[in-house]
């Protein structure tokens, strides 16, 4: 597999050149996005034009400036071209895969973008993580679960059912983060006390103030999941 050898340098002008080179090697970004607009799936990009990188290629310690990563999200594999600085949250919300399909997993929200509020919470190998603080390139080889992956066909996850029943939401912007975090709690601790629920949800903020009903919903989901 060819490695991306485009090398960024210290000089801003070279960085500009670098960008131009990337654009010359494949579809320019503008065309890429325009292709999306028609709703049609863009033609698969031939490997020759977009240099693929095995992002975990460790043999040469090559400097990666672009990579095509394979991400397993909700048990579906997506292939997407990213820069090292691209976060997993950006991939979920704004990412367009190499087939030109928008990933469109907008459940995880951008709220603080600094790992301080939980709005972007997803699961990585079953553990809750702030997707805004995770580089997409580091997500390869992991099992990623977003809120969209919790319902089973047409059946809601017990946590989701409980949130609706107990009105554990108002504006709902924090809700995906809380739902995912709550599922992770119950997977680890099937019978949490209220104090434990509060402690384990301390990484999620709700400005509307739905916490009391969230605690009730989690306790109720725990019962459902027995």
């Amino acid at each position, binding site marked *: 597999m060819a490695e991306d050898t485009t090398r960024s340098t210290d000089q801003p002008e070279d960085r500009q050149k670098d960008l131009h080179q990337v654009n010359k090697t494949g579809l320019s970004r*503008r065309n890429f996005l325009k292709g999306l607009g028609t709703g049609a799936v863009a033609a698969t990009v031939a490997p020759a034009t977009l240099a693929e990188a095995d992002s975990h290629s460790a043999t040469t310690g090559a400097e990666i400036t672009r990579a095509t990563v394979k991400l397993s999200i909700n048990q579906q594999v997506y292939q997407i071209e990213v820069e090292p600085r691209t976060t997993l949250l950006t991939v979920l919300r*704004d990412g367009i895969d190499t087939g030109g399909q928008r990933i469109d997993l*907008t459940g*995880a929200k951008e709220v603080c973008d600094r790992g301080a509020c939980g709005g972007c919470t997803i699961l990585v190998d079953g553990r809750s993580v702030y997707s805004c603080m995770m580089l997409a390139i580091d997500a390869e080889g992991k099992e990623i679960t977003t809120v969209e992956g919790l319902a089973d066909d047409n059946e809601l996850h017990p946590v989701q059912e409980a949130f609706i029943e107990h009105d554990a939401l*108002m504006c709902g*912007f924090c809700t995906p983060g809380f739902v995912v975090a709550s599922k992770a709690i119950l997977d680890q601790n099937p019978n949490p006390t209220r104090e434990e629920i509060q402690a384990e949800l301390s990484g999620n903020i709700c400005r509307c103030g*739905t916490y009391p009903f969230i605690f009730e919903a989690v306790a109720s989901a725990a019962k459902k999941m027995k």
Partner: protein
Amino acid sequence: MAEWGEARKSSLLGKYTQRLSGPQKVTGQAKYTFDINRPGMLYGRILRSHIPRGTLTALDLSPAQQMPGVKAAIPLIEAGKEIRYEGQEIAAVAADTKDIAADAIRAIQFDYDPLDHVVDLGEAMSESSPQIRDWENNQSDRQIDEKGDLQAGWTTADAVVEATYSTEVQVHTCLESHGHVAEWDGDQLTVWASTQAVFGTRRDFARHFELPEDKVRVITEHMGGGFGSKFGPGVEGRAAAKLAKETGQPVKLMLTRKGEQNTAGNRPSMVQHVKAGATKEGKLVAYEVSGYGTSGLGGGAGFTGPYVYQVPNYRTEKFNVAINAGSGRAFRAPRHPQGAFAMDSLMDELAEKIGMDSLEFRKLNDPNEIRHAEYDRGAEEIGWNRRQKVAGSAPGIQKRGIGVGSGQWGGGGGKGTKARVNINSDGTVEAVTGTQDLGTGIRTAIAIIVADELGLQPTDITVKIGDTLPGLPSGGSGGSQTTPSVSPVVKTAAMAAKESLINHLAEKVNVAADEVVIKEGSVTIGNNQLSWKEAASTLGMETISEEGSWDENLREGGAAGAQFAEVEVDTETGQVKLIKIVAVQDCGLIINRLATESQINGGVIGGIGYALLEDRIMDGQTGRSLNSNLIDYKVAGAQEIPEIRAIAHDTDRKVTGIGEPVTIPTAGAIANAVYNAIGVRVRSLPITPDKVLTALEEA
């Protein structure tokens, strides 16, 4: 004139109904403005000033314009103009990706002549301060209110309290930041907006771009919090539309968290110097206050006082102070939490001085009977008789105390909403109006009202809101006006639709209209019973479509509230732990008890943050805010939440709005509880450990 009448006894009104938007929100299917993606969409980003004050001398957008992936860059301030606060908008770009947009704004060069800034209130009011507005000593909007004979009042007072109370600048902290997706199609503009006012936003865009209003469409299907800060497009909305126009592509411009915390509004601060006197029989006889606050560069600071209490002799002086900081905006009960905290504390201090129970003292001076009932109910619920008889007298290091706070809101809604109810021949029912649901649950309330009228379930009603396209206006969701403004019109629309269906059926079957009864999902005509669906199918090719009309008999204003707090203060660390909060809130005629209780919880939790944690910090040296992020600006998290007993106090009143009243009494209740626990008063919000320790040490 319509009446709620039968509806008061209905199986739906006032009961616990699940929020209709729940399934979409818990699955991540609900699309907010932040989630909207349009074909060919660009990402907008604003360059903000890092200096608090200066004159812009040069602005060079070309490094951004030349950057690959950047499609447009526009100035948002002209050279020669003054930059007046950190965060002020300098320019905006639109680029293919968010990362490129962020690179682009960093590439923009601008130059300025610095000017002296001021961000401290005391400094701003002094003679030596830079004059940052054409106001004398940076002060404006001085309002003086007088009644009776203050001097005479002092002479009759047996006890006088003189104190200074202060509250912080509080930031709305909407989780979905302000922002829009703007898309032009020829001369038509469509905007997805995170807004509390789709029609107000439409009007603003139309004026700004000199378009007829019907060429602008604003859509807000779901939005992630407003709390008063999102009533119009703002600089960022207009910038998004301008960039979209220039590029010919849709542009999504959402504020970053820093921009959101810094420049998208806040609750002005308050400092008040107050003196009040009461007789030993418990009557307030004199009240004198001079107070001010800052709303950044704008006006709007203020506070309530003497608030819910009647005092025959008073003088109040309130004014506004300008500093170089992001301007305030309406924030959940503007002026009330500030004033209530001060009044609640003051009344407690006076009650103690005359040796009277705090609740008794309040009742003697507050004529509101509903609040009296709420005091009684809340007192029983919290165990008011467990309160320390002498503040601070509990033994041990962790000391408990109980306190009370009160609130009063106006609201009550008004005309201006148009709504329509359609009954389709397949039995589906649509309720359409141009209001928006910020999390208040109005969507579900509409469904409940219509379902109740038609004998159906809320899930049978398709509610269409948050879109100007149907041409059914409604006001902005502020002032706790939404439910009382929308409910009457929806109710009368449903009534009219029901009547139309009845008349249609009566004619079809050739009976008198009063022989047709629509109830509980079925329709009885004489001795025959049809299901709702069967009845609707008789419409054939027709649709029933009825508009509602304003009926002010269905709503009223004036929501009274009282809250009680029990706290435990660690006298060695100054930490205030909340044990329990009881909130007794008049909610008028309750439509959805579940959403109402959520709203009460939410208001209390907003009040907890205000009382104990939140504070927008400005640095005098740099003129910048130091905590425009969610680590250092501390809103209440999961571990701050005590047991909250949310009591929707049923009355015979009509539909009213409670979005705001529920957040007013909390800080006063907590502050009074802290005093009751430790016998030392903290008169400044937020009550953080350092202030408690300092107060204990100075005692």
